[in-house]
């Protein structure tokens, strides 16, 4: 089993875990964690892609930028979660359904 194959299995595994978490969790914090797992799958995918194509540097530089960007998204998500908890006294995403139509 080559390094690339292990990487690919890792990407698919992380994607599976991430999407499963995204679809099944009701807690907003867990949803954000699931998003982070998905983002990590993307980071790993970029590293694998860089290695597979021989553009290791390109893949890595994109991956580092992605890490920075998805940290920002996570921070904003957490900030929203704090406000949701303060204003609505719940973190259950199912209860976040006032807007309809």
């Amino acid at each position, binding site marked *: 089993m080559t390094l690339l194959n292990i990487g690919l299995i890792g990407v698919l595994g992380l*994607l599976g875990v991430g999407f499963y978490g*995204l679809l099944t969790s009701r807690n*907003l914090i867990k*949803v954000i964690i699931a*998003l982070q797992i*998905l*983002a990590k*799958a*993307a980071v790993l*995918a*970029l590293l*694998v*892609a*860089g290695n*597979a*194509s*021989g*553009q290791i540097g*390109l*893949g890595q*530089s*994109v991956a580092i*930028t*992605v890490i920075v*960007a*998805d940290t*920002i*998204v996570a921070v*904003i*998500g957490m900030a*929203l*979660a704090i*406000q*949701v908890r303060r*204003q*609505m006294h719940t973190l259950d*995403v199912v209860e*976040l*359904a*006032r*807007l309809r*139509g």
Partner: protein
Amino acid sequence: MMETSPLFWLIALPLLATPLVYLSGHLAQTVTRRETVNGRVARDVALAALLACWLPFTWAARELAHISAAHTDALTFGWGGLALRLDGLSLLLTVVALGLGTLVAFYSGPYLAADRGQEKYYAMLVAIVGIMIALGCAADLFNLWVWFEAMAVASYLLVAFYHEQPTSLEAGVKYLVQSAVGSILVLLGIGLVLAHTATLDLQEIRAFVATQGALSPMLLAAGALFLIGFGVKVALVPLHTWLPDAHSQAPSGISAMLSGVVIEAGLVALLRSLGPLTAVAGTATAWAVLLACFGVLNMLVGNLLALRQTQVKRMLAYSSLVHVGYMLVGVSVALFTGTAVGAAGGLFHLFNHALMKGLAFLAAGALLYTLHLAVGDHNPLTVNDLAGAARRYPLAALTLSLALLSLGGLPPFAGFMSKWQIFVAGFQAHNGWVAALVIFAALNSVLSLAYYAPLVNSLYRLKSSELVWAGKPMPRTMSVALALLALPVVAIGFWPGLMRWLTEPAGLALMALFGK
């Protein structure tokens, strides 16, 4: 040469101004210890920064016109990992983002006067304008993704600006989760492209793809991921569910920006990423059919959902879906026929949609402000609230009606002209399916009047409700902003050639993207 490139200043100016806007507002409040001074100072600095951006813009436009005469099609700027190209399409997006951004900064003064954290609002507004200009200029997939993500981050903050209102928070959460998943799918697509072609530069990818006999499964999968990932931001129909919430809950100036520029920026990003993949000979028709299918879905579903809305801003948000549909029809006609007429029509509609929808959201926002927000009420503005509003607020009612009739495609307004150009391009294709497609679009345009017309009717013909008479007077700044935006909507309707300098190069740039 960094200092001598107009492209550098066009993007750096708003981005450098962003912290300045925030700090000036923040410092003004700490120093003077007065309540609302932060908003006023931040707005002035933001407005100054956005107005200053028009200088590098005219410089860039002139230089672009100059080099187009020499048959090269783009201004380029590269520095480290930054790779930017300004072509006709970028210029169109720049005009839209900068124009609407400037007006929104001007308009938002009274709208937000009572809110806390205004300096953050203006800082993000200036940032998102700069980011969208850069997004339009992205020359490789990496830049495309970075600017796209930056735009998303800035817009999350703006959507959830009223962070003490549960409905705004809900809209913000829905938007963040859907948009973040979309951007991860785009990244996976970028990974596939990188693994397969060993480059991220859009022109190199196009050159690579053009040598292939057929699109490999990996690139096909990448195309699908781009379509879904960017499609979330463009609100292609099954992915549109965040849009009505986010657009209706954001402050009205931001609704105008989101609906007028952000989804269009998403569309430009989508077309740029898909462009290289259409290079395989003989596949253009398949892509055209795919885009047309999404266009049809968007028009139909958007219209049907808009029909049953009672809240004004929600209705306008659904009508954005319909207008994305028209743009897609224009682009797909262009892809099918290989001529720039349809592309120019679709992009002319993009420009007009920014004007019309921007005007509609700002006018609806002005009425929302005078009737609800000014008295501290965060309930949404419903169609019934507006009964007879024309007697009390003649300018807001007039501009809202102009915008709605233009959105509905009535001559002699801007919306009619761009739809007409798309329809004409469709009939010139001399193909039964394309003709059916544009006839379907025309019928949808008629259908959309079924929700625009009652609103205009209720503004003018119904008896004024008590709510309207109890409303606050309209701030003058808002009236000026509405009048300034209404002017081009009418002027382009009478002289559609006015914007040809912008839309024709944009159409040609789009065709170049598709290799025509």
